[in-house]
């Protein structure tokens, strides 16, 4: 496991040398093909989102965003739900990554597989699972109604659905980083008298901070953009349980294209910001991994 980042680096360099030896026409054909398909599939639609959103002019654009109380509520709801889901996954992700990277226990590989489950389950199915558990006809439905707690068609359901769908992001990012860094520094901290919390806050988290931030960024982007699972549990009650992606869909169904694209442009903007952050943080994470690989290699030196 320790060598993984090293081998990745070697592959990269090897790839470069081979690419440079290819004839010119092969290189240019490949580059043009890649750039062309990216333009067609990504750049054009993204630009179109902003074009459509800004079609009614700047004033119309802002009016579309802030003039409609239901749209405003949807933006607010997304801004509340995403941080809660990210926080929940932060706690879960650190705990799961620590357990998987640091301990050998029966069921360890099962836990690793379970962490990935939300990636392989269709979000719609994830939403349905929640409805079957907490809905009126679900297992806990009657009990919840007796106690006046609503989960489905209310914000707790939105949070559960979003958390479930984004569960793997942080743990997945942390496990390889923690495995590469190893437990030596943590053992050293304990031998120097640190208790569990001191070790976590002073040694473990600072060491994985870039990997953790990377996971948080990805998790947040997905949490804000989640549609399928949220669609099933929300009941899309305008002004109550509509999130931004649901609002985009509803406005679009109402043939209110400019308003729909205005909200969509916000989500797209978020995606672009995420992309930039992701590139910056990914670079720092990779540097940490390479450093860890160098340190664990038993080379001496004056």
């Amino acid at each position, binding site marked *: 496991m320790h060598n993984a980042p090293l081998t990745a680096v070697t592959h990269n360099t090897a790839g470069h040398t081979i690419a440079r030896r290819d004839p010119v026409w092969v290189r240019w054909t490949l580059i043009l093909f890649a750039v062309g398909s990216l333009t067609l599939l990504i750049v054009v639609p993204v630009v179109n989102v902003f074009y459509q959103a800004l079609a009614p002019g700047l004033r119309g654009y802002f009016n579309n965003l802030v003039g409609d109380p239901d749209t405003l509520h949807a933006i607010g709801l997304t801004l509340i739900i995403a941080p809660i889901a990210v926080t929940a996954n932060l706690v879960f992700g650190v705990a799961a990554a620590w357990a998987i990277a640091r301990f050998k226990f029966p069921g360890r590989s099962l836990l690793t597989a379970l962490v990935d489950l939300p990636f392989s389950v269709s979000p719609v199915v994830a939403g349905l699972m929640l409805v079957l558990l907490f809905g009126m006809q679900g297992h806990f439905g009657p009990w919840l109604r007796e106690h006046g707690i609503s989960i489905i068609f209310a914000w707790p359901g939105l949070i559960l659905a979003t958390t479930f769908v984004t569960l793997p992001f942080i743990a997945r990012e942390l496990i390889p980083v923690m495995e590469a860094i190893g437990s030596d520094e943590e053992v*050293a901290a304990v031998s*120097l008298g640190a208790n569990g919390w001191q070790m976590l806050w002073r*040694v473990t988290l600072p*060491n994985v*901070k870039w990997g953790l931030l990377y996971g948080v960024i990805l998790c947040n982007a997905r949490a804000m953009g989640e549609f399928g699972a949220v669609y099933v549990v929300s009941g899309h009650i305008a002004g109550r349980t509509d999130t931004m992606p649901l609002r985009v869909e509803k406005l679009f169904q109402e043939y209110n294209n400019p308003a729909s694209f205005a909200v969509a442009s916000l989500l797209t903007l978020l995606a672009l910001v995420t992309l930039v952050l992701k590139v910056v943080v990914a670079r720092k994470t990779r540097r940490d991994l390479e450093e860890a690989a160098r340190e*664990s290699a038993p080379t*001496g*030196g004056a």
Partner: protein
Amino acid sequence: MSIKVEGITKRFGSFTALDNVSLEVPGGSLLALLGPSGSGKTTLLRVIAGLEPPDAGRVLNEDEDMTQTSARERNVGFVFQHYALFRHMSVYENIAFGLRVRKAPKREIHDRVTELLHLVRLEGLGKRYPSQLSGGQRQRVALARALAIRPKVLLLDEPFGALDAKVRDELRSWLRRLHDEIHVTSVFVTHDQQEAFEVADRVVVMNGGRVEQVGAPAEVFENPANAFVMDFLGNVNVIPAQVSNGRARFGSLEWLFPEHDHGDERAATLYVRPHELQIERSPNGGGSMRARVDRINAAGPVAKVFLSSLEGGMGLNVEVSADRYVELNLKTGDTVYVAPRKVRVFTPEYVI
């Protein structure tokens, strides 16, 4: 403060890493755990540190049982083989760590860290990060960090294992001087016999989870307790022999071996160190064997001569002083006579 280990046993699955090991580390001494890899030396160190719970036995500190005390509360300084410095903390913060988690006042931390930076000769490097230091400097930071908490005992796991030969030599003699200065009870693990002999007051030779011999370096080197110790301490000629009637024989050579005075002949092994073999140009009576010079390495304070015996064809490895080498005027292919000055005979039961 003295450390006592009583009947420690530690198993990992079906592998027994430590098999009923008992040991005493006198207060203020510097002791080396010496052995090949897999001999249990690092496991023993980790048991003393509380990083590994033993399956049986006790660890005592000044007669106080600390087997159940957690590593955190044992107040033991541990220096790890690969330093394990906190990569995101400066040298200063690394050294201060043990004091910070103990919530020591700022002033005290500052004084102690400054004192330690001076002790390990890293003044002015407090703001650097571990990645900006050389291997030797990192090891000294690791040492300062372990010493900052004023440990009852200092434990070092292969402290020089990851360093260049030259830096290793410097750090070795520096560690010895440091120990003479601060006198903290110390145990270090090594697989390098030269390192153990050079640095330690006492050497514990371990093998297969057991202690083979304990003693001062000279004592262990001159009087190895058994064949393993002799062999492990390195650079030794192994000669197969027969013993019977109080004598050990190899070819025409004979030595007294009163421990085995029966008439029935049995196999034994003779061990002779390279410097205990003597090369002569002519036979000196019965006590020498004929050999041919295969190769000579005259670089260094002693000349290393590689011979093959003409009786039995076995390779021998002899060290002669530079003066003697000039006197003998040896050349590859010469026929010479070799006589052991000192021989150790080991049979499964007998030792001389």
